[in-house]
């Protein structure tokens, strides 16, 4: 008896949830809120920049904002999309009566759900980065636009290194002011204590007026001064304080300011690590762009750059590259403005060039945007399915209309 009651209670709770999530009213409310969030997010891009606004308004669960001095709470774009996905799945696919007349709308809704699915997969699994090469250079690594990590490497006598120990970007960026964190590994003879990470900071000489009033710690004539985050997230130059604490306890801690200014801004440069010596071994420490391996190498053979006559503005630029794979050999290719190279799930777009201010005849590098998105083609297929659905719906409606007209004519005639 008790079991029956519990079962009934569960059933009624599920019914309430089912009713709520399949409700047409929910869809309407979600659409209205989406419009408001889109408006807020679009306006915020002016002040915050594209990336920050996208994160705050469209990839979030909740939004806390202000209109004048009044706080405004809104559901974030991520939550709204999840609600709409559930609503559409249950309401337009599961609940809807399955009959031939509704086949077109059913297919269209499945297409729209595929679009949502693609957005979720891109959000969770997609990566984007860049690869910059001078002619003659090759690489199999893609660098992040926005994520920086801390790297420590034992240095050889010729200023090279064979391996690196990495404090991952998400861990590094989670370190807050006055909350140092310690990291260690059996392979290194010291502990690494990282503090006061700032996503955008300038190491400033203490002689500069802006450093005089700052309470930041001074190391080797410099203070790390946090700055406001840049509108474009890729323009932020992070920095932090580090201490290397010898495990042996025989020597003092070694302190340094690490700044992304020491990393390369040009593919021809070599990064400039903070160098220290411990137990007869030289080590380097650096804030470097997060990078990841791709399953093939790309070599830039030639960068073709045309300018408008008389001015330095680019008219056209394209790259002749060779794709190199151990087992498949070399394949020469061209990457142009609207003709990317797609291979193994990666898409190489001709993005930009450098260095800034290059003059005719200068050696220039080519930069490719490299995107890896498992759901790359989903929007296309989603649109195809939606279009087919709408087409089927129109045909069914047309046939229905014709059948009804015919019936009316027959009735009128009889």
């Amino acid at each position, binding site marked *: 008896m008790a079991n029956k009651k519990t079962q009934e209670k569960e*059933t009624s709770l*599920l019914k309430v*949830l*089912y009713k709520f999530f399949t409700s047409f009213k929910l869809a309407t409310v979600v659409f209205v809120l989406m419009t408001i969030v889109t408006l807020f997010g679009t306006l915020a891009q002016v002040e915050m920049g594209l990336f920050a606004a996208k994160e705050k308004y469209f990839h979030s*669960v909740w939004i806390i904002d202000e209109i004048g001095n009044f706080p405004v709470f809104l559901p974030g774009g*991520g939550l709204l999309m*999840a609600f709409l*996905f*559930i609503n559409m799945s*249950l309401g337009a696919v*599961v609940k809807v009566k399955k009959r031939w007349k509704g086949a077109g709308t059913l297919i269209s809704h499945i297409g729209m759900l595929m679009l949502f*699915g693609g957005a*979720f997969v891109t959000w*969770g*699994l997609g990566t984007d980065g860049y690869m910059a090469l001078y002619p003659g*250079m090759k*690489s*199999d*690594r893609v660098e992040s636009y926005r994520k920086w990590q801390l790297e*420590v*490497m034992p*240095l050889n006598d010729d200023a*090279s*290194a*064979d*391996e*690196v*120990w*990495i*404090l*991952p970007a*998400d*861990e590094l960026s989670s370190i807050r002011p006055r909350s140092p*964190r310690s*990291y*260690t*590994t059996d392979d290194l003879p010291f502990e690494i204590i990282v503090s006061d990470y700032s996503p955008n900071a*300038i190491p400033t*000489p203490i*002689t*500069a007026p802006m450093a005089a009033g700052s309470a930041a710690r001074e190391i*080797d004539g*410099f203070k790390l001064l946090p*700055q*406001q985050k840049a509108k474009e997230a890729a323009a932020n*130059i992070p920095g932090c304080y580090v201490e290397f604490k010898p495990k042996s306890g025989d020597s003092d801690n070694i302190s340094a*300011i690490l*700044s992304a*200014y*020491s990393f390369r801004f040009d593919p021809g*440069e*070599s*990064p*400039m*690590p*903070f*160098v220290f010596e411990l137990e007869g071994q030289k080590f*380097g420490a650096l804030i470097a762009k997060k990078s990841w391996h791709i399953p093939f190498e790309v070599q830039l053979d030639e960068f073709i750059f045309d300018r408008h006559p008389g001015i330095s503005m680019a008219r056209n630029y394209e790259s002749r590259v060779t794709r190199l794979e151990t087992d498949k050999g070399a394949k020469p290719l061209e990457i142009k403005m609207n003709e990317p190279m797609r291979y193994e799930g990666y898409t190489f777009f001709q993005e930009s060039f450098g260095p*800034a*201010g290059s003059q005719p005849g200068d050696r220039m590098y080519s930069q490719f945007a490299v995107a890896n998105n498992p759901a790359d083609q989903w929007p296309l297929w989603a649109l195809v399915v939606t279009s087919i659905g709408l087409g089927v719906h129109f045909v069914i409606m047309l046939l229905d209309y014709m059948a009804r007209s015919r019936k009316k004519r027959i009735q009128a005639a009889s």
Partner: protein
Amino acid sequence: MEFTLPTLTIGATTLALITTSCSDSGASGPNLVNRKLSENENSFRLVETSAERFRYQLTPSNPSGSEGSGTSNSANQIGLTYSTPDGWTKTPGSPMRDVNLSFGTNGEGECYVARLPGMGGGLLANVNRWRQQMGASPITQAEADALPVRPLFGQPAKFISVDGKFSGMGATEGKDDYRMLGLILASEAGAVFVKMTGPRKLVEANEKNFNIFTNSLDVGP
């Protein structure tokens, strides 16, 4: 309960998708990750000082331009070339200044070039810092954006002109009836500041020289 199975299936799928989407794909524990370096990325440049590591050029300027010549180009160790206008004299600068020049009978007029990595604090903060030195009220971002533009290194730089009581760095007393002219070029590649200060009439008489000097500034060989 005919709807339970599809409901649960779709709900679970949705939750899984949301969880995947919301989780930070790059998140990791507080452990250091080891990886081998390939030959394309294993060389480093070892520099002696923090100043070099942070891309400050602290090497003192080498005045190769003949002072007061008005036409000769000055190339120096900081990688800049420029013309020294007639009546202007190269003077020792501070480590923060790449070029330091003075003019006027007693050298009371001053003009310098400074460079900082990155945005150097940004346009608005620097404009208002300069305005504060002249006793002028701060301006808004919109007003800073609307400042006139003049070329500097072939790029559009914001031009600032302020009259007032000048209190330079470390000054205990302000100097009345001064004028400040300045150019700020702030970009991701770095920030360049050219600033001229002096008694208003002297600066007025040297504005043409300021333009000659700023137009002549170039990246050296």
